[in-house]
């Protein structure tokens, strides 16, 4: 039964080869004359100053949060969408309720201004 996955395994292995090949090829062909001046972190031509890592706004987290909630929600609808053709009418009503609740959440967050970029 799993013999069909033979193709997938071979395809995945070859994909890995193809993904690594360009860099390996370049590593063979390219000159290797590294110097500490070259290896400096890029900073528009200036010498690097300060911490190279800055702390970011929690704002980004809010979007990630909204993404995860919406993603899980829509992925839960996937089995429903596949079965939609065979489902009775009340299933449409259920999915509508499901989506309306989510939409209500979006509108609430929107009106509260929590998705407003600062």
């Amino acid at each position, binding site marked *: 039964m799993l013999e069909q996955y033979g193709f997938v395994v071979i395809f995945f292995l070859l994909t890995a080869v193809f993904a690594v090949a360009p860099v390996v090829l370049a590593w063979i062909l390219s000159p290797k004359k590294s110097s500490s001046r070259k290896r400096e972190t890029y900073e528009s031509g200036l010498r690097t100053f300060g911490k190279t890592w800055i702390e970011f706004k*929690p704002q980004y*987290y809010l979007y990630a*949060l909204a993404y*995860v*909630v919406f*993603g*899980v929600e829509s992925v*839960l609808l996937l*089995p429903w969408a596949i079965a939609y053709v065979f489902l009775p009418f009340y299933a449409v009503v259920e999915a509508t309720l499901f989506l309306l609740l989510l939409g209500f959440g979006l509108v609430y967050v929107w009106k509260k201004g929590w998705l407003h970029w600062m």
Partner: protein
Amino acid sequence: MVPLSWYLLLAAALFSIGLYGILARRNLVMILMSLELLLNAVNINLIAFSRYLEEGQTIGRVFALFVYVIAAAETALGLAIMIAVWRTHQTVAVDEIDALKG
């Protein structure tokens, strides 16, 4: 097919590794991630059981789906709390966040 016991042993191993992570790490992110390992172990069990022992093979999968929902919800809330704690305490190590009173 692979015997069911192999899957169960695998899930048990994953569960124990996750448990170790929860007990031994200090960073809140690491703890939440170890918790995901536990949930993954549970899901392997659910799906293996539904595949081997259930005739319709749907109930186990539906349960696994709900476990996914819980996992996502738990991570989202846990990390939100972590960020709030970071803002007030400037730390994410659990043994330093015991001053919840003040």
